């Protein structure tokens, strides 16, 4: 039987036109017995490296290619291009870079001339049935014209006429025309199947993806879809039968495949900047030695530091990485320059470094000495671990965190410094999760929009594979779950889960190259002007061996910087965060009491519960704390033993923790015998099984990328044998390996935890010492952290900070500190619908012309549109100018300056007539308006206003809980602040709710959660029935029943002010208590919603 190579196949990286992953295509091709497979996604190489690697692993020959879009005045043309050689690959990358520059970021389009210019080293097939240069030519003349142009560029030996039989009615005519054209042009025919799926069962998803791409319901896009499932990857026998009249076209696939010898996994030819450059190494050595003298001379750690530096420099030279380190140093120096500009030369922020390291690099003394990390690795006893070792398999990662403002400028500066041809941002692929899948698939299936909306909101947010389950549980949908369209939604959601939707930008990774980067990977303009990104994500960049620089924006760094600045301005105190005491007992007392709302990393519900039990008392403890509440340690079973041993140690300072084996006493000493840090996985493998550093790193990589079970199994064999050789019983070796696997890679390296632990302490210190400035900085750095602004404000109020509402005569655009650090004023920027520029213009008008004297004055002196002014009035920002109702009424009468040609026509001040007597808003209505307009309120907590009605019905408050016995039945009302369903909690769901006194954690066991899914996921105001549970110092409510607060028949009395004047105009707003609660429900800020993976 003759063979067949598929030379035209699309994966999901064709984005909404291809429904299988490259890995799935590879596995199917292998199963079908194809001789080779080309991946030819539309206008990109996003999946090319993943594909090439998967093919190698499966023993299939990969061909790197693309289906490029071009135009020639007669319409859109598609051409299938395959890389024969490294020259051809470079041309492919350059061509795609140009076609994006020409056609646009999301609509790349080359010209045939451009394709011709890049022909060298490429094989060209004439394209698909619907858009192919020949197949879809409007007439024979144009077809011949195009054919000749391409033949001139590629020559007869590198151009083929592509024929397909997708089982469309027009196949017969099209193939006949193409056979004639091939004869007339003197070109061979080649058969392809233009595959879009690896298996027929993906055909439905392919249809749906096309509908999503076109923005049409499935019914309305039939002509644009493929009409059947014949676009599946087909094997040699099926293709031979399909082209039994043209066997030479099938044979030709093998000849073409044989010419395309370029191997992306081998032939990329990338070099680091200054790799192996002796001058670079000498420069790095001098830089480090100078800093070593400066930081360690005369210290007790001098000898150790000197030894470590020599060892590291040796490794760096061995791996030819000196240039790599110098480059990072250079970027940090650029950041320093930018910081001076951004912060201002005299800012209090000047004492702060422009950025700081995170990740495993923090364990390196070279990083410390070159300013890339701010943790002394010798003093903190950080191991070099996986960052650098003799057997290094890939370039190490150096992650740098910057405040957001500095990072934005730095990315542009790096482009400028290294050139647009040599630097780019790393790409990322936005993938389908439940919510997006439901919305987009629901739309093309033509399902009712309100149902889709409800289902999307109730979904877990993450798992598209479970949508069917969701439909069966949702009230009103369950009975329709058997309908064909709903069934289709469930099926398609599971199929679409995890597929990439489009190329976007990685959070901060950049790649830099000495040679032109656009010969290595296509570059496309980023959404933000002045930036470009490459078509590979971080894994592909890493596999290609690219030098990556991670410039990450960290909200807390921005907040801490601003806080330091605010303290200086409000109190005239200059803080140097690097010199604050790291053992302040007051700070640790708050941390131990979990009084940490707003503090970096240790503010979450899970972290708070941990703090109450582990009671951290030093920076090392915080380092553990930050790392402990992560999926790795949780799944690795480290948490409970750690807590127990920590308690035992507190009670008996001589306590010795148990170890699985005496050999583990060394690596696990600091963490009481359990694996908390990622580098401990390596240390354990080395200590127990005698792994080399490179072997251990291999194990870590195998775990982190979820490689095949076989890869892990081979590591297990080495581990078992190594442990046996050291006399470790098989049972213990197996047990420890299990823990390592469970830990997987979902943990922090110790160095990273140390860097984050320090920032956690610094933020806790600021939180305690300068609560007003800290709150103000957090509010200005939103969105960030675990809590909505409303909860941050209530925490500050508990710390005696007065928080004041938006006021057009007092607020700046951003939030500000008032009264020398005793109060915070919410900024105008918080009013929804009023843009930053508008807010700034308002402040400028006030600064130049004095306070606004009335709503008319405000309207005349600002450029604000009437709806913006109304929004300001509704938010209470104009309360100082008069009662809201009255202002709204007056706003309707105010004469505004009119824009006229050549300038603004002034208006005469006009006296307004008498305002009719309008009633004031009730306290409740003002509160609801606050939430509606700003997402927060500085007035009373909603529960305080509802309390009188609740107290009568026997509701307790959060303040009552500490004095109640464990097991007491509880009836409580609360506002939902956060929802979590951690993957490690076996289906248990946690809700954090808040009343006017504080926060309490609700625990919903699976049976209860199943009964109340929709409420638990979407309801902001809850009536909770349950039992108090007291565990150590933790209070939880074990929920038995949930109700929405203020349901019909269970009224909640909204208090009325007795002096209120009844007024007809007010009636629609005060349509009764139930209506009021409903309004707040709609306006309440969305609680943070974390599904699996977040803790």
């Amino acid at each position: 039987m003759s063979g067949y190579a598929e030379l035209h196949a699309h994966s999901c990286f064709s984005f909404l036109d291809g429904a299988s992953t490259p890995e799935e295509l590879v596995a199917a091709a292998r199963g079908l017995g194809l001789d080779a497979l080309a991946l030819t996604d539309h206008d990109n190489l996003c999946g090319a490296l993943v594909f090439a690697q998967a093919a190698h692993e499966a023993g299939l020959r990969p061909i790197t290619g693309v289906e490029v879009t071009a135009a020639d005045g007669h319409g859109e043309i598609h051409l299938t291009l395959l890389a024969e050689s490294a020259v051809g690959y470079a041309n492919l990358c350059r061509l795609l870079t140009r076609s994006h520059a020409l056609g646009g970021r999301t609509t790349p389009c080359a010209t045939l001339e451009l394709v011709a210019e890049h022909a060298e080293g490429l094989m060209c097939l004439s394209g698909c049935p619907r858009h192919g240069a020949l197949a879809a030519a409007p007439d024979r003349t144009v077809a011949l014209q195009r054919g000749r142009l391409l033949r001139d560029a590629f020559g007869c030996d590198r151009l083929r006429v592509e024929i397909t039989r997708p089982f469309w009615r027009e196949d017969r005519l099209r193939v006949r025309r193409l056979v004639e054209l091939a004869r007339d042009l003197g070109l061979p025919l080649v058969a392809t199947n233009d595959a879009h799926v690896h298996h027929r069962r993906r055909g439905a998803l392919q249809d749906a993806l096309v509908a999503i791409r076109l923005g049409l319901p499935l019914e309305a896009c039939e002509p644009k879809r493929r009409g059947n499932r014949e676009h599946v990857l087909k094997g040699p026998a099926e293709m031979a039968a399909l082209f039994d009249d043209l066997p030479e076209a099938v044979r030709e696939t093998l000849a073409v495949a044989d010419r395309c010898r370029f191997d992306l996994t081998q032939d990329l030819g990338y070099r680091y900047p200054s790799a192996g450059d002796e001058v670079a190494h000498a420069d790095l050595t001098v830089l480090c030695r100078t800093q070593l003298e400066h930081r360690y001379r005369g210290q007790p750690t001098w000898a150790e530091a000197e030894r470590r530096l020599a060892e590291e420099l040796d490794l760096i030279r061995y791996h030819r990485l000196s240039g790599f380190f110098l480059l990072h140093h250079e970027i940090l120096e650029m950041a320093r320059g930018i910081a001076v500009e951004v912060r201002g030369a005299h800012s209090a922020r000047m004492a702060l470094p422009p950025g700081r390291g995170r990740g495993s690099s923090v364990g390196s003394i070279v990083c410390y000495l070159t300013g890339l990390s701010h943790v002394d690795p010798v003093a903190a006893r950080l191991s070099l671990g996986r960052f650098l070792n003799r057997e290094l398999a890939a370039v190490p990662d150096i992650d740098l965190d910057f405040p957001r403002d500095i990072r934005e400028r730095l990315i542009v500066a790096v482009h400028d410094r290294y050139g647009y041809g040599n630097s780019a941002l790393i790409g990322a692929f936005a993938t389908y999760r439940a919510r997006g899948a439901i919305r987009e698939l629901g739309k093309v299936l033509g399902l009712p929009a309100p149902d889709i909306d409800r289902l999307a909101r109730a979904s877990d947010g993450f798992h598209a594979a479970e949508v069917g389950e969701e439909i069966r549980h949702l009230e009103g949908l369950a009975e329709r779950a058997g309908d064909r369209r709903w069934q289709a939604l469930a099926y398609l959601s599971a199929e679409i889960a995890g597929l990439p939707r489009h190329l976007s930008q990685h959070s901060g990774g950049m790649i830099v190259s000495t040679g032109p980067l656009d010969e290595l990977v296509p570059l496309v303009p980023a959404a933000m002007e002045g930036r470009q990104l490459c078509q590979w994500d971080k894994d592909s960049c890493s596999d290609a061996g690219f030098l990556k620089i991670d410039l990450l924006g960290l909200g807390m760094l921005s907040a801490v910087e601003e806080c330091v600045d605010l303290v200086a301005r409000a109190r005239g105190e200059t803080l140097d965060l690097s010199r604050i005491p790291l053992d302040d007992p007051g700070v640790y007392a708050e941390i131990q009491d979990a009084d940490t709302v707003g503090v970096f990393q240790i503010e979450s519900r899970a972290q708070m519960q941990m703090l109450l039990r582990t009671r951290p008392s030093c920076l090392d403890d915080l380092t553990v704390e930050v790392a402990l509440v992560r999926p790795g340690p949780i799944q690795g079973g480290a948490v409970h033993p750690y807590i127990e041993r920590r308690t035992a140690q507190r009670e008996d300072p001589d306590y010795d923790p148990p170890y699985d084996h005496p050999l583990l006493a060394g690596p696990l000493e600091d963490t009481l015998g359990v694996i908390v840090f990622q580098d401990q996985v390596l240390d354990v493998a080395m200590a127990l099984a005698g792994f080399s550093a490179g072997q251990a790193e291999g194990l870590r990589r195998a775990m982190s990328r979820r490689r095949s079970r076989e890869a892990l199994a081979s590591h297990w064999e080495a581990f078992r044998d190594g442990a046996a050789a050291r006399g470790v019983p098989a049972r213990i070796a197996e047990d420890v390996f299990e823990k390592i696997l469970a830990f997987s890679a979902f943990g922090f390296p110790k160095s990273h935890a140390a860097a984050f632990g320090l920032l956690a302490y610094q933020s806790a210190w600021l939180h305690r010492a300068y609560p007003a400035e800290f709150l103000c900085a957090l509010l200005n750095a939103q969105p960030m952290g675990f809590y909505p602004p409303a909860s941050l404000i209530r925490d500050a109020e508990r710390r005696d900070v007065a928080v004041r509402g938006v006021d057009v005569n007092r607020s700046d655009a951003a939030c500000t500190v008032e009264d020398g650090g005793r109060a915070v004023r919410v900024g105008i920027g918080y009013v929804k619908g009023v843009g930053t520029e508008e807010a700034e213009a308002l402040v400028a008008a006030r600064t130049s012309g004095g306070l606004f004297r009335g709503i008319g004055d405000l309207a005349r002196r600002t450029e604000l549109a009437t709806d913006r002014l109304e929004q300001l009035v509704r938010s209470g920002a104009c309360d100082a100018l008069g009662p809201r109702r009255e202002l709204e009424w007056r706003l309707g009468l105010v004469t505004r300056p009119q824009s006229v040609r050549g300038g603004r026509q002034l208006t005469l001040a006009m006296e307004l007539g008498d305002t009719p007597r309008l009633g004031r808003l009730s306290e409740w209505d003002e509160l609801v308006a606050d939430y509606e307009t700003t997402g927060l309120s500085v007035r009373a907590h909603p529960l305080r206003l509802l309390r009188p009605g609740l107290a009568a019905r026997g509701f307790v408050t959060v303040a009552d809980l500490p004095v109640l016995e464990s097991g007491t039945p509880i009836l409580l009302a609360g506002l939902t602040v956060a929802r979590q369903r951690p993957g490690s909690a076996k289906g248990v769901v946690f809700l954090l709710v808040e009343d006017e006194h504080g926060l309490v954690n609700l625990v919903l066991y699976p049976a209860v959660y199943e009964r109340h899914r929709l409420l638990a996921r979407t309801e902001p105001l809850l009536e909770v029935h349950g039992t108090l549970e007291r565990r150590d110092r933790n209070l939880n409510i074990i929920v038995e029943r949930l109700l929405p607060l203020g349901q019909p028949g269970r009224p909640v009395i909204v208090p009325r002010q007795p002096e209120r004047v009844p007024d007809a105009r007010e009636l629609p707003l005060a349509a009764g208590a139930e209506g009021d609660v409903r309004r707040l429900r709609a306006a309440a800020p969305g609680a943070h919603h974390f599904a699996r993976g977040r803790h």
Partner: protein
Amino acid sequence: VSSLQRLGVARPVQAETGAGGEPVRVDGRGVEAVRGRWIVEEGWWTDRPVQRRYLELLLDGGRLEVVYEDLRGGGWYVQPGA
């Protein structure tokens, strides 16, 4: 010709199939050649999904006829006017 046929509504036919599963006789008339083959799989998300194998046949006597096999419900049909 019935009015339904004038409206393009398919009519069931007796088809005798050969080794490849393709008709060799349709309503008693021999099939001389198969001129075209296409497949339609549509409406899978609705209550009336369509899955058909179409053939354009040259029948004895030179007449062209489009027939399809209903791959869901079974049976062969003539599609008039196709």
